């Protein structure tokens, strides 16, 4: 039982990361209708920035904050400069552009910062508590705490402010909101900017314990996509819940199902397939009806 609970906690910890990145994916998808394959690499670049600042003896939390601010601006610029010109293009063109970004950002980051493994200083002490034999690490607590904070901030921002109202208007109907005087372009930039900042935070926290290198974010991105698909791509709540589900499912299967040893990725994709087959719009997503 203690082992089960320990694995549950580990699952929730990694699930919190998937949930954060999935949240970023959802923000981008809700506003611009794009599956951003470069989201993970954007987070990677931000994490390199954190490393860069800490090398210049900036305290870790400040470094993360700086990286988040830069990512926020960078995300907005990416939307404005790279995405806006192809906004109305076919989904294929959009996929290709984000894949181009994926390749470019990844290799630019490695050229700029070097392709050896970087060790990030921890932002908090590494501790483990054992209440009743259940291991709870400070990693898990911090990740979950950060996820909760993100959710709270996003909730307040989107549902309790004028900007949030405008943002949601754009997400649900860009044409009408443009007519109503909402600055649609700025809202799209805001979506990308927030996604980039969230990615920076999640990246910095999750990579710190394991070391940073070029491929660090790719597996995380895969799991996050699974989470976003599971939750329904247009639902932030869905992304969070599904992120946790994917995380827990991952640790549980590696612990208890030896058949999937070495092929753990079966789990997220089994989940995606299952959900898409049964409920194509995801657990929390809204269904679209097409008229002929």
């Amino acid at each position, binding site marked *: 039982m203690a082992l089960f609970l320990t694995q549950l906690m580990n699952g929730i910890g990694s699930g919190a990361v998937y949930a954060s990145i999935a949240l970023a994916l959802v923000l981008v998808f809700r506003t611009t209708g794009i599956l951003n394959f470069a989201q993970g690499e954007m987070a990677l670049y931000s994490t390199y920035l954190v490393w860069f600042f800490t090398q210049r003896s900036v305290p870790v939390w400040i470094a993360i904050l700086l990286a988040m601010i830069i990512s926020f601006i960078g995300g907005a610029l990416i939307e404005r400069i790279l995405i806006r010109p192809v906004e109305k293009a076919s989904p294929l063109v959009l*996929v290709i552009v984000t*894949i*181009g970004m994926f390749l470019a950002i990844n290799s630019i980051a490695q*050229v700029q910062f070097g392709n050896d493994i970087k060790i990030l200083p921890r932002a908090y002490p590494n501790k483990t508590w054992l209440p009743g034999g259940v291991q709870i690490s400070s990693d898990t607590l911090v990740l979950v705490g950060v996820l909760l904070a993100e959710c709270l901030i996003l909730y307040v921002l989107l549902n309790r402010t004028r900007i949030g109202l405008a943002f949601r208007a754009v997400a649900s109907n860009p044409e009408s909101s443009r007519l109503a005087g909402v600055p649609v372009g700025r809202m799209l930039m805001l979506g990308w900017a927030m996604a980039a900042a969230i990615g920076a935070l999640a990246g910095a926290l999750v990579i710190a314990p394991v070391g940073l290198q070029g*491929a660090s974010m790719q597996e995380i991105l895969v799991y996050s996509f699974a989470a976003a698909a599971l939750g329904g791509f247009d639902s932030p709540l869905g992304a969070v819940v599904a992120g946790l589900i994917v995380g827990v499912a991952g640790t549980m299967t590696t612990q208890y199902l030896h058949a999937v040893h*070495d092929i753990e990725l079966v789990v997220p994709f089994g989940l995606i397939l299952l959900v*898409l087959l049964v409920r*194509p719009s995801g657990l929390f997503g809204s269904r679209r009806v*097409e008229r*002929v």
Partner: protein
Amino acid sequence: MTADRARIIRLVVAFGVLIAAVYIFGWYIPQFHEQGTTYLWAEALYIGVAAMGLNLLTGYNGQVSIGHGAFFALGMYTTAILMQSHDWSFTETLPVVAALSFGVGVLVGFPALRVKGLYLALVTLGLAVLFPQLTNRFVPHDLCKTCGTSQVGELKAVKLLPPSWTPTFIKYPDQWAYYATLTIAVIGIVAMYLIVRSRFGRALIAVRDHEAAAETVGINIARVKVIAFATSALYAGVAGSCFVLVKRLATASSVSVFQFSIEFLVAVVIGGTATVLGPFIGGIIVVFTGRWISESFPSTILFWHINESVKNLLSPAIFGIGLILLMYVLPDGIVGGGRRILNSRLRSLRRGKTSPAST
């Protein structure tokens, strides 16, 4: 009268191009070049074949897959294992690869029925990431004496020699690899023309353009989508078989499978979606651009000295940026965009000599 003459001119030009292509591809490249070049062209051809297959799915049927590297790797492993441990010849493995990749394509294609557009990209992304894990787990690790991983190979030189039934101008392994790939490519192109112009091809386009409307005129959407997926998987699988002849081994890592998937997709987009030859040409361009970046990329730009390892890191960046730029300039690819520009030129020419500024 003038229409007839235009048609005759067109036919003559097409015939000339065909003769030139037959000479260049059938004789000039494989007979007068060193081994490395022939292998490089063979590589370009099989990437082209895989891209052409993917285009059936992406260009004509409107489904985006970023997992066709997995089918490519499937064909690669099937051929390599059969040749290495069961002593099959290359040609014998092809029907097996075709059937297998088509079959797996049907299985994987079923989710494609329910998922639309971008969601399929996700499912297939999973395929690309998962496949290397599967080979790691299930391919016996003793198939590669030297590498100790789940690669297959390196194949013995004897197995790569041209079989005895081939004509005498195919002497060396590189020529055999080239001609085998070329034959497959030609068959692939002809088959693609036939598919696209058939009833099934029109159904594909109808489903892409308006699924609901297509259904009302009696098209079985499920069947069309699954067959499109499986056929494109078949192309990718057979292309993977050719890989073995050229590289003498089968290997799959999550990076390489993903890269192949992206290469195919990029080739489709560079060449032009929903054109038969475009993706094939795109594949050739992708391979040669990659080679150009790794070999003749300048080692200093202004004051910045670029060493070898940085160059390797930098090539995806150039590739990625080039890709984004291409999407801005020619979103319908080289063949599609070229055709569009040519057509509008012709139209403005035909419309009369009243606008002298148009040329």
